[in-house]
């Protein structure tokens, strides 16, 4: 089968649909996933195809959506729960952190929690302060949970399928800005990518750009521009914030001896903080420059377009950061 060009939302839909066909235990639940066809159209047509039993509209109950998914998963089903946007997952935080992530450990392996929480994430559409979060690092803080954040339609399919098939709870975020972006996707229904494996999206020998999700696009654009000046960037797409593929990051760093971390999230206690700490701790002898970080500005996100864009990272900010350490 040839790869097919499609937007990321269709790649996600394909993955989810294939897994529902493959495994009767897989079902979707969440606000507006059924009759409304999904807020982001990822479950378009599902209600008609799979029926009410497996496409379950819920009340606006984020605590119960996450918590009921935990219970259903413990009992042997494989729920894929949609939280409309990650901003609302703060209401689910307890169920995710205290139950999804802890139950296997706390009861010494008696129960498994094979569930996926999908949530749309990101900002840049004047969605304002409460609707502009990218809190993936918060979730990645907790052992017991996996956190996946795809950057391309191909990865979206392979990673979501891996998340659904895995016996551990997974928080899976989908960048809103990436939903319409096209890319080539394998049509095979056994296309599954390994959990916790980063991907080199571009090879280079001067600087390592460590990034994920939307940051991959900015990093690739920056790499393109810098290449014209003779600076070769290697773009490491983490794909998973947990498990964190430090091996791939270190391997790249040993070659380049320089690193910029690029992320859409806030700067404090971030992926940038973590990667910088890991590099100074384990790669000190290879360091030729401080690790730089490009992220959102440390502000609540405003409405007005002019100032919202100031706060957002972009390719130019990545280029500037690279120039500082080269």
């Amino acid at each position: 089968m040839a790869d097919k060009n499609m937007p990321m939302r269709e790649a996600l839909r394909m993955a989810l649909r294939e897994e529902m066909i493959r495994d009767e235990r897989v079902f979707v639940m969440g606000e507006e996933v059924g009759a409304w066809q999904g807020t982001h159209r990822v479950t378009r047509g599902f209600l008609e195809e799979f029926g009410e039993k497996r496409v379950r509209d819920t009340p606006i109950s984020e605590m119960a959506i996450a918590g009921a998914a935990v219970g259903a998963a413990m009992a042997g089903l494989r729920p894929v729960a949609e939280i409309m946007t990650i901003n609302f997952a703060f209401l689910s935080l307890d169920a995710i952190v205290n139950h999804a992530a802890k139950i296997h450990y706390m009861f010494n392996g008696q129960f498994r929690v094979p569930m996926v929480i999908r949530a749309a994430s990101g900002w840049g559409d004047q969605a304002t302060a409460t609707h502009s979060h990218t809190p993936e690092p918060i979730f990645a803080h907790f052992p017991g949970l996996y956190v996946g954040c795809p950057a391309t339609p191909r990865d979206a399919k392979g990673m979501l399928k891996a998340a659904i098939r895995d016996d551990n709870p997974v928080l899976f975020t989908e960048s809103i800005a990436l939903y319409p972006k096209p890319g080539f996707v394998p049509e095979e229904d056994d296309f599954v990518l390994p959990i916790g494996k980063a991907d080199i999206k571009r090879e280079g020998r001067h600087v390592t750009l460590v990034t994920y999700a939307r940051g991959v696009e900015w990093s690739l654009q920056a790499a393109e521009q810098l290449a014209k000046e003779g600076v070769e960037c290697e773009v490491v797409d983490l794909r998973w914030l947990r498990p964190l593929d430090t091996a791939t990051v270190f391997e790249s760093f040993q070659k380049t001896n320089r690193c910029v971390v690029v992320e859409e999230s806030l700067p404090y206690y971030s992926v940038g903080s973590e990667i910088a700490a890991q590099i100074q701790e384990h790669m000190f002898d290879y360091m030729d420059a401080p690790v730089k970080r490009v992220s959102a500005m440390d502000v609540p996100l405003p409405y007005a377009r002019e100032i919202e864009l100031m706060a957002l990272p972009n390719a130019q900010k990545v280029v500037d950061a690279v120039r500082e350490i080269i």
Partner: protein
Amino acid sequence: MAEIDKPMLLEWYRQMFLIRQFENQCDVLYKEKKITGVYMHLYSGLEATGVGALAALRPSDHVITAYRDHGIALARGMDPKVAMAEMMGKRTGCSGGKGGSMHLASREHNFWGGYAIVGGHLPLAAGIALESRYNGKDDVVLSFIGDGATNNGYFHEAVNLSAVWDLPVVWLIENNGYGMGTPVEVASGQPELHKRAVAYGIKDMGRVDGQNVVDVYNVVTKAVEYARKKGPVLIESLTYRYKGHGVSDRSYDKLAELRDWQQKDPILVLQDYLCKHFECIEEELKDIERAEMAAVHAAVEFAEDSEAPTYEDLISHIYVEE
């Protein structure tokens, strides 16, 4: 409904006596610093609610509760040895010494655990019940709820979800009068907690005397039948905690109130019932008591002789690894 016969009553007596002994022993062991940590919430005084409710279930049905879980675990059939070992943080404990007093569980008994975040287990109960419906089974979930927990958002969301999804859940409120130090009337705009059922359009099974194991059994049996065939129900059991909220309690100064409740102690109530209905039962009860005291004694010995968890245990079961 199964006719309540003498063997059933004696079994309930055995369970209630075991729980009381177990809890008394935990109290002693805590004072001796053999059970450690900052959390331990005893089930003394609530035995009739737990034992009567669980007697209404079949083994394939499911049970879930909050952190006041020792009595539920024992009534569901957990070996007192593994329960006590968990209390002492031993690797032979039901949760390998990683869960402690508030996190007893037994997969093989369909006892899905004790949970320490108030209300946190309520949506889990809904999810477990969903599996039953999803797979065309007729097993029900019995979910205990503290009176205090009825005021947190989980209660609202989980009970409402059970209503709109028609889930086979028996929601059983253990109204012991307090959430930590706050009386029900202070915390709840509607202190008749069973009336909350109306708000969700689910079956209201009213209040039951939680000191009387026969009454609890009868009403929960009806509730289970209803949940199996139709959908969720809510019951409120009126009971009392003898040992205060937990070991974190400061002075417990409600002695007069405690004495009132002890007049209708669940074990005494059942004793009276048995003595009224069966002649010369005293000796049989004494035999049961001796056996259960010995069982708790053996449990303590087992726990004391067990190994502490190791570094391997510390780092195992963080993720499922195949």
